[in-house]
């Protein structure tokens, strides 16, 4: 575990570098890194800092006392070295709750070849498409809200959900009067971190005598379809995927020795989405199913479900407001157990102070504690409603 001093130094370094770059307002046209006749390199980046405060519990950090452990920063570059070819990469660092720890990760690094509008391929480390927000869930400028519905887009689990090492096919098929169909099909390896959200949840579930030794890389396959309807701004999506074997290795001390349980699990998910941009309005709704099938005898399957519906309205160039309601059920066999569900009504205000600086403030009224990690920070959980205030500012270019 990194010391507070280490993390502070990292945080300052990231903030200073990104602030300097943002201040310089680098633009692709200004960066002829390969000479005046070479392809220009397009740079973009962002740095976000948030603050969370909750009326009860500690959620996404020590929020009951106010928590600044909500930082994200990214820097990317992209260029076209050859016809129909693009190379792009993004470095990313984050710290949410105890996940991330400001580790600098290669978020994506890919080569892309587009044969035509209907078919292209990407290979390398790619962002995984799923729903409206999975591949941009940590990009604050690209949405109204500070916190997305956490039952689908858990800020702590990005190392598990967001990127994979492999490849994908993509393209858009015109459907004439019926609009068009965009598709992405991918396969590769996910590499969950021992500093990530999955590791945190595993550690919290172990007995006091247990230890998380490692998390194996795992294969993942899936796809995302979007029907871009003939109505401008209206689209519907369907995504699915499978991790055939997710395994983590633990050691549990018992009297006289230790045991290493079989933790192998198959994970399957489906997500259905609808989005409508109409004038200054944005309407969104999604439904997400996640199913775990443990290999070990006697271990029960787990089925979870999340849905949300939300809207946002942009009043003018600098002000937007939005809200959503979401329900998460960690175990669909126990829909009335407040320890398993989390129901959240959110209202957000977004201020675009300048083209490169935004500020958000939002409030959540939450019933249930299904997404709180079971740890000594939350020893008592009940079904009383509680509040969460989230504030966040982002600089981007």
């Amino acid at each position, binding site marked *: 575990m990194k010391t507070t001093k280490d993390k502070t130094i990292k945080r300052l370094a990231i903030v200073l570098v990104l602030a300097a770059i943002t201040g310089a307002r680098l633009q*692709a046209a200004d960066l002829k890194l390969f000479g005046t006749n070479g392809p220009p390199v397009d740079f973009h980046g962002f740095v976000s800092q948030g603050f969370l405060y909750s009326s009860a519990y500690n959620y996404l950090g020590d929020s009951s006392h106010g928590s600044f452990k909500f930082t994200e920063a990214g820097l990317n570059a992209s260029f076209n070295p050859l*016809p129909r070819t693009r190379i*792009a990469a993004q470095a990313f660092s984050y710290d949410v709750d105890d996940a991330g720890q400001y580790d600098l990760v290669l978020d994506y690094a890919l080569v892309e070849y587009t044969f035509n509008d209907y078919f292209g391929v990407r290979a390398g480390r790619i962002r995984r498409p799923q729903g409206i927000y999975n591949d941009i869930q940590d990009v604050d400028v690209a949405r109204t809200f500070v916190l997305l519905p956490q039952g689908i887009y858990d800020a702590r689990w990005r190392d598990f959900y967001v990127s994979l090492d492999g490849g994908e096919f993509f393209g858009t098929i015109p459907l004439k009067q019926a609009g068009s169909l965009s598709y992405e099909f991918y396969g590769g390896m996910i590499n969950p971190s021992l500093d990530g959200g999955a590791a945190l949840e595993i550690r919290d579930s172990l007995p006091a005598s247990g230890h998380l030794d490692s998390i194996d890389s795992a294969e993942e396959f899936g796809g995302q379809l979007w029907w871009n309807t003939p109505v401008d701004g209206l689209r519907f999506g369907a995504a699915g995927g499978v991790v055939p074997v997710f395994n983590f290795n633990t050691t549990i001390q018992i009297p006289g020795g230790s045991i290493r349980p079989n933790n192998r699990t198959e994970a399957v998910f489906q997500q259905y989405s609808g989005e409508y941009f109409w004038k200054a309005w944005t309407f969104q709704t999604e439904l997400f199913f996640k199913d775990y099938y443990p290999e070990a005898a006697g271990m029960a399957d787990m089925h979870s479900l999340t849905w949300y519906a939300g809207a946002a309205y942009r009043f003018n160039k600098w002000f937007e407001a939005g809200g959503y309601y979401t329900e998460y059920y960690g175990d669909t066999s126990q829909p009335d157990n407040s320890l398993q569900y989390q129901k959240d009504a959110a209202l957000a205000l977004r201020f675009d102070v300048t083209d490169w600086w935004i500020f958000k403030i939002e409030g959540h009224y939450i019933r249930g504690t299904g997404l709180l990690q079971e740890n000594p920070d939350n020893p008592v959980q009940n079904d009383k409603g509680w509040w969460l205030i989230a504030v966040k500012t982002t600089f981007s270019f």
Partner: protein
Amino acid sequence: MVLAWVLLLGGALQAAALDGVIIIVNKSVTVDSISVAALKDIYTGRTTYWPDGQGVDIAVLDDQIIDKTDTALEEISGMDTSHFKTFWQRIVFSGRGQQPDRIGDVPSLVAFVASNKGAIAIVPADADLKGVKKLEVK
């Protein structure tokens, strides 16, 4: 009858969208004309390369003081300026494309298109088109 009405209305909308504006491209772009549907594919990221394999480089005005180009962009892309910006931010930060370049005024926008291979932009019909090619909209 309904289909004919829809097609007629669609054609009228296309003409109205480009009233008072023109489409300009870098002289390296080999096409001389483009349909409104193809323009929409470009401005919504579905078409990212010209037929010769050269990357499409979209440039837009940063400050929306020119109503006609703003309106034309909205009609072509199907998105208002806020949604257009958010749409492209999603694409660039997910590694799926490059964000349109934002230029502060019309002369600079024309100069940008003139000096960047594959560039395309919407400008007022009375703009000085030095160094760029005008695309005919079919």
